[in-house]
């Protein structure tokens, strides 16, 4: 009972092996929570990018070196890459089957993770180096 207490699946659905496979409801929930956060973060990110228009290398670095723009970009990049990983995961689970699915899921983690790390590293390097 301990698992079913936390699960959003109904006991009947579980008994019949129907509904989301294993932890599908958890993925959907995390997608929704990150989506709600991204409504705010993506808007703040676009406004931040508008302040960087036509600025040269030094001016862009100076702007992104400030805490508020840096934190907005860091939050947007991390939550967006988390959200896009979940979204691509559900696309893969819908359309890719068999052994290719396993490679696609691994590739998805690697891509989203690499983009996240690259963005975080770059913002920190601008701010601290």
């Amino acid at each position, binding site marked *: 009972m301990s698992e079913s207490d936390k699960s959003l699946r109904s006991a009947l659905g*579980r*008994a*019949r*092996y*129907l509904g989301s*496979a294993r932890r599908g409801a958890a993925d959907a929930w995390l997608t*929704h929570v990150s*989506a*709600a956060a*991204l*409504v705010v973060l*993506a*808007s703040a990110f*676009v406004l931040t990018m*508008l302040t960087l*228009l*036509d600025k*040269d*290398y*030094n001016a*862009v*670095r100076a702007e*992104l070196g400030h805490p508020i723009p840096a934190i907005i*970009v860091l939050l947007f*990049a991390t939550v*967006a*890459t988390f959200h*896009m990983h979940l*979204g*691509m995961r559900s*696309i893969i689970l819908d359309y890719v089957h068999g052994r290719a699915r396993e490679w696609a899921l691994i590739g998805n983690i690697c*891509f*989203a993770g690499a*983009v996240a790390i*690259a*963005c975080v*590293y*770059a*913002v920190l*390097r*601008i701010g601290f*180096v």
Partner: protein
Amino acid sequence: MASNDPTSPSPAARPLSPHLGIYRFTLTMAMSIAHRITGAGLYLGALLLAWFLLAASMDATAFSHFSGFIQSFFGRLILFGFTWALFHHLLGGVRHLIMDAGYGMDDPEREQLAVANLVGGFALTLVVWAIAYAAR
């Protein structure tokens, strides 16, 4: 119902929903597909953000490669598409949150929400690009 035996080691064959081909075309269906396509586009577009930040973190030469690309006609086209996909997907997400809360699923409302999503996505894109060009 032996295949649905919960103690069976291998899961039963799951029922699959019918695929796209058998449905009549509706606006809400097109918006659902557009939500997924814009999401996949933004997935690839994230490379643009990583490129921009990495270039700014390196040196003026690396940054000039990025700004040269993004200021070219092709670069602007990509960035315009990215902006539209971002706003379309953002408003689509809000629409999904509204519907998940149980609202806006009846006959006129769901179409109105879909139209608002479509128009709003283009409108926000044009507003941001108008600000961008006005601020130059």
